[in-house]
């Protein structure tokens, strides 16, 4: 039983981070939780003896996903701001 404790902990972390990512509604905050989910998934993959999968998950989860989300949020906000300015003029 004690041998399975780390895997159990990894599963719990992934479950908590996944639930959090669904429950958070603000995209900026969600990007933080998504990066957390990526990190927990990488830990789980390593605990399940799959280091290659963990490596790719790290690359995608810790930097790329938040970058995509934050860039899209910034683009959408900028567009909305300029549209508002045009309406006023």
């Amino acid at each position: 039983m004690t041998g399975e404790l780390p895997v159990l902990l990894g599963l719990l972390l992934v479950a908590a981070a996944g639930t959090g990512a669904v429950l958070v509604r603000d995209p900026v905050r969600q990007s933080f939780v998504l990066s957390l989910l990526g990190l927990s998934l990488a830990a789980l993959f390593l605990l399940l003896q799959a280091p290659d999968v963990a490596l790719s998950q790290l690359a995608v989860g810790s930097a790329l996903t938040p970058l995509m989300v934050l860039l899209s949020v910034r683009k959408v906000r900028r567009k909305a701001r300029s549209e508002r300015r045009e309406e006023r003029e």
Partner: protein
Amino acid sequence: MNGWTAAGTALLLCGFAPAACGVATGRASRRVPAQNVATTLLSLVFLLLAQGFARPAYVDTALVLSVLGPAGTLLFVRLLADQLADHPPGERRLRALTVGNYVAVAAVVLPLSAAAGPGRAMVKLLIIGVLLALGSWVATRAVHAAAAMGHGRGAPAEGMSGDR
């Protein structure tokens, strides 16, 4: 389960999980430093697990995370600069987190390199330790710079204006 795996699990539970709570709650000024702490601690967990499973190849994941973790923090700092400038994080808390990072890295990497014995594995572990400490330092400097920009307001955070 040997001592190294137990230590890794304990660090995951008592170090990474609280840091993860910090990342998931609060303002950006709390989330960004917590994200840096979380990646550093997870990298240390990977190192401990690699030793625990007796698979030196697993150290590569820690090496990748020691580079990508600070990169992720810098990304958050860059894209959330205006939020960090509005509510800058406490100077003292930021310094305490950085020192805590250094202590954690030293407390994990030094015993691991002692266990590895002199050789290539030890050099790799030490390089990862230095990378982790450097990453923590760089991330703290970036957060400081973003917060300082808020004190000397006037121009909005760079990149947020100018092209329209």
